[in-house]
């Protein structure tokens, strides 16, 4: 559906400020697949998203959408990017209209030529799904909204387009946990509708339970690409470090490394809680038997 093949990209090439951002990167999304892209800041995530969305032409490499090359031999971009919709990291950069209503309805009205009643229906539905108070804010300037509300306004405007391919760059930044869960559950619903999504996020705990694959980037390359389960089990310290795995996963990993739990490393809170309880029981049991309780410190796995 969406393919990045051997992509390399440099900012301000041949100047003293030249900086290679992507270095021979490969990532392919199958139709209906959801990939979570994560990694430290500056690793190239946003640049990759912009390249896949057709906003930046990569210096080297090929981008394909539905099997078609995004650029022809003259370097002209194909019109197929209409099917790919991207939500920017900073929502205020995409706002242009004077009111929230104009901003949110623009794509449906101008892009899709939709009628007023249908526009209202779509916008109200999505707004309700992610708890954006549309009726209350419709006449305000989008720039006057708080940062969390701007984030949600931007999401409403894009999700209302019901795109087949969606690229989301940090869609949860600036939202609180409840708001995050609502956005994530909407994305999950969309996934069941067989939409393809690339989501850049640092909040792994909200995604590990349902996305198909996780791609971890560092310094312009993928250091890992596999299922959430594989990521949780990995013994590669660089991958664990760059992926910033949630504390519960790292706890589960630690318990396993110390021999307290036999099952696989888990991302599920209830499972990890059970693993911790088992470990506590073992600790207590050992302490009563008067043996050494704990693995010696040198064996402490470096998860931090």
């Amino acid at each position, binding site marked *: 559906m969406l393919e990045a093949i051997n992509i390399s990209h440099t*900012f301000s090439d041949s100047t003293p400020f030249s*900086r290679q951002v992507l270095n021979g990167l490969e990532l392919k999304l199958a139709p209906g697949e959801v990939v979570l892209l994560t990694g430290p800041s500056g690793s190239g995530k946003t640049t990759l998203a912009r390249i896949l969305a057709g906003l930046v032409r990569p210096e080297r490499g090929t981008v394909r959408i539905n099997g078609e090359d995004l650029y022809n031999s003259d370097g002209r971009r194909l019109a197929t990017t209409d099917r790919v919709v991207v939500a920017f*990291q*900073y929502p205020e950069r995409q706002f242009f209209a004077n009111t929230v209503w104009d901003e949110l309805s623009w794509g449906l009205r101008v892009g899709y030529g939709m009628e007023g009643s249908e526009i209202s229906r779509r916008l109200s539905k999505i707004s309700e799904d992610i708890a954006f108070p549309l009726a209350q804010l419709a006449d305000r300037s989008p720039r*006057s909204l708080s940062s969390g509300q701007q984030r*949600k306004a931007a999401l409403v405007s894009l999700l209302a387009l019901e795109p087949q391919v969606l690229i989301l760059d940090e869609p949860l930044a600036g939202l609180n946990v409840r708001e995050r869960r609502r956005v994530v559950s909407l994305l999950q619903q969309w996934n069941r509708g067989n939409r393809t999504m690339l989501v850049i996020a*640092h909040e792994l705990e909200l995604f590990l339970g349902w996305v198909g694959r996780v791609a971890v980037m560092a310094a312009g390359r993928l250091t890992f690409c596999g299922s959430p389960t594989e990521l949780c089990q990995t013994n590669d310290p660089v991958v664990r470090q760059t992926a910033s795995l949630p504390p519960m996963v790292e706890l589960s990993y630690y*318990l396993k490394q110390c021999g307290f739990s036999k099952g696989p490393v888990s991302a599920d809170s209830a499972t990890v809680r059970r693993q911790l309880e088992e470990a506590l029981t073992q600790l207590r049991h050992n302490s009563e038997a008067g043996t050494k309780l704990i*693995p010696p410190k040198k064996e402490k796995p470096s998860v931090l």
Partner: protein
Amino acid sequence: MVSIEFNKVTFSYQDGTEEPVFSDFDLSITAGEWVAIVGPSGSGKTTLLKLMKGLLQPQAGEIRINATVLAAGELNHLAACAFANPENQIVSPVVAEDVAFGLENMGLAPETIQVRVEEALRWVGLWERAAHFSHHLSGGEQQRLILAGALAQQKKCLLLDDPLCMVAGRSRTEILNLLKSIQAREPCTMVHTTHLLEEALLAERLVALENGTLVFDDSPGRFLQEKELVEQLGLEVPAIADLGEMLARRGLVEPGEVITLEQLLELLTVPGPKQDNEKE
């Protein structure tokens, strides 16, 4: 150090024509305190920080900085700020120059500026990018640059508006721990807004806002006990703190003792005497 006091502050946008964000709002922050501010989107967190800096002026009431009323149109020069959106704050095309900009305005000597720029960029992990274009930095790196600019000023008051919301979990923890150690070494007043309870737990005091009203003002540990309020504000007790509470219920630790992964692993590695005393 800097104290901040709000006395019956009323503020609304558009020169008072909009619904007020704050009405008769009182808040008093003691010099040297670290206060975390939480609350849903649109509850007034950013507005509160802007009022503290003097970027916005109240229509009624007064804001006192170190007991002196902040006059209309006057900026609070004792405070350095970092807001969530770096695009409005980065002024220089080169990373190191951007940090130096604030220091030059303070009239510091070039040698001092050099030292401080390097120190601040090292703190946030951007020193090796010092000579790069600031617009080549990623979103998370730009946020760190803004924070470096604020830290380099070495003011006795830091106002941070969700300053690291685009920085990945691990680096965020590292930078916050660093802030904590800086604050411990050279006490300064810190006001810090966040959407994550994990971050708010680092502060000494937690203030929760809802629609411009103060709905909680006490220690972060006490806030965790207020289950309904936590839920009402759209927040969640961090998973590890939740486990810590389970351990506390069993008498293995004190309530509020374990809130981070480090603390929990420490406990598993070196069992405290309490564990030995524990009987079913």
